[in-house]
């Protein structure tokens, strides 16, 4: 079976179209993409040049902006670090052991992606907040989970989990069993098999899931603002600062933060698609990974 990636679409040899309607459907697609994606993003890219670079450079001298970016990046990174082992564990359990109820659990993993972010936000803030089901016992132990960067990490861990699980699952499912069996027959222990054989094969999907979760995490707004406390320089995330700047009608300030976030997210995406391509042309290709 050929891999189902759409990245290879451009590589077909050029030939005359056999089906009718090419210009109509290409026109519709370009109109749709042009008006809804290219046009607004062009406005964002051109904004710094609109009134000369002066206001933009002025906007970059902003300690609060760097503090917010630091909070966003560090919290998203920590959340991904927490999600990686949990996501691997979940994918492993669901694919390998197929325990009772694994189908229901598999569906539950999509929930963080399906539940509206504002709903996630108020639920997590109440759950981990003072007096909450988890917040109250944690408070007795001296842990303050909400209105601090810890709250941001909690929210981003919740949001990022599906990305790791969904990117590891297919690779785990298609991993050639005979390789593992051969290694087992050669006398490798369970732990050795995991570290030497599986982990190297799972590293690319883990990393690409991590990249997607990180890109999503630095831009996350709805699930974070209710739990974070939003103190400038301490627990204020970059997307929230964009909103604050817009409320002050400081469009240049908002644009500069937006551009930094956007470029970082795009770099993650490019790295992820590069990883995917290198994986699909490697060892696992024939199994449809």
């Amino acid at each position, binding site marked *: 079976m050929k891999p189902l990636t759409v990245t290879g679409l451009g590589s077909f040899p050029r030939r005359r179209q056999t089906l009718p309607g090419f210009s109509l*459907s290409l026109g519709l697609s370009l109109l749709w993409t042009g008006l809804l994606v290219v046009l607004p993003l062009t406005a964002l890219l051109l904004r710094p040049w609109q009134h000369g670079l002066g206001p933009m450079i002025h906007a970059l001298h902003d300690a609060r902006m760097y503090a917010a970016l630091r909070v966003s990046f560090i919290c998203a990174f920590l959340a991904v670090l927490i999600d990686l082992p949990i996501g691997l564990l979940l994918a492993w359990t669901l694919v390998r052991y197929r325990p009772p109820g694994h189908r229901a659990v598999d569906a539950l993993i999509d929930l963080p992606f399906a539940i509206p972010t504002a709903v996630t936000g108020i639920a997590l803030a109440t759950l981990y907040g003072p007096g909450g089901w988890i917040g109250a016992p944690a408070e007795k132990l001296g842990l303050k989970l909400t209105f601090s960067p810890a709250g941001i990490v909690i929210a981003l861990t919740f949001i990022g989990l599906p990305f790791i699980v969904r990117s590891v699952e297919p690779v785990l499912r298609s991993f050639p069993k005979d390789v593992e069996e051969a290694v087992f027959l050669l006398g490798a222990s369970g732990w050795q098999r995991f570290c030497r054989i599986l982990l190297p094969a799972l590293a690319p999907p883990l990393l690409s899931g991590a990249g997607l979760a990180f890109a999503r995490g630095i831009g996350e707004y709805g699930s974070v603002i209710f739990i974070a406390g939003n103190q400038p320089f301490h627990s204020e995330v970059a997307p929230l600062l964009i909103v604050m700047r817009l409320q002050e009608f400081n469009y240049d300030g908002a644009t500069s933060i937006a551009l930094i976030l956007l470029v970082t997210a795009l770099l993650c995406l490019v790295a992820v698609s590069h990883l995917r391509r290198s994986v699909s042309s490697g060892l696992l290709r024939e199994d449809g990974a």
Partner: protein
Amino acid sequence: MTRQSSRITPVVLTLLSYTIIGLLIVLPVVLILHEALRQGLHTALETLKDPEARSSIRLTACVTAIVTVINTAGGVAAAWTLTKYDFRGARLLVSLIELPISVSPVIAGLVWLLLFGRQGWWGNWLGHHGLHIAFAVPGIILATLFVTFPYVARTLMPYMEQQGRAAEETAFLLGAGFWKTLIHVTLPDAGWALLSGVLLTTARAMGEFGAVAVISGHIPGVTETMPLHIETLYNGYQSVAAFAMAALLVLVAMTTVLIRMFLERSFRKQHP
């Protein structure tokens, strides 16, 4: 020793996974339902009948319907174009379609303000002519369109590519035109993927918060969608009302997840 540990490990790992899922994902959902029903089902339903709550539900339904129709039409066109024809720049088009996924929702709102806000390119001019897009319903629709842009195309493309082109080419040779081929040959076969993509678009459109928060102006009863109204209620310490509306959105989200899972499974059974 090895044999014993290999029997115990699955049980331990499964218990550990289920505990994590329970604490991390199930508990917040249970909490939402618990908080909504804290004063009984009747009170929860009453809060949803409040005029502002009803207007937010109406606005969300209206925005979601418009957005789903536009992005489904565009998504089908793009998936068809990319999988049934060969042309230069196809890869670039795929990247452009996938781009909105990695853009922060707040930026998705900001870009439309740069076009239609008071300091934007066309905002003032359009305002003089009585056309308000930012801080009005059209802005909310545009922001939601951007955020839910890729889902239909992304769900359809892998399956349309797998279909190949033989059926369409045969239909064409037998005299079917473009629309007939699309509607009677391609779409029925990819119907489940289309439905799955449409459901995902609907779910994301209903729940969009960041992008809409930036561009809507938060006017209660006028430009407040359900997620925005939840924020207003929650910040106003109307916890039961906030969680009642949240529970409504969660129930819809869970239903879409279940239907999509069912669709995918029945598809896999038909095409093993």
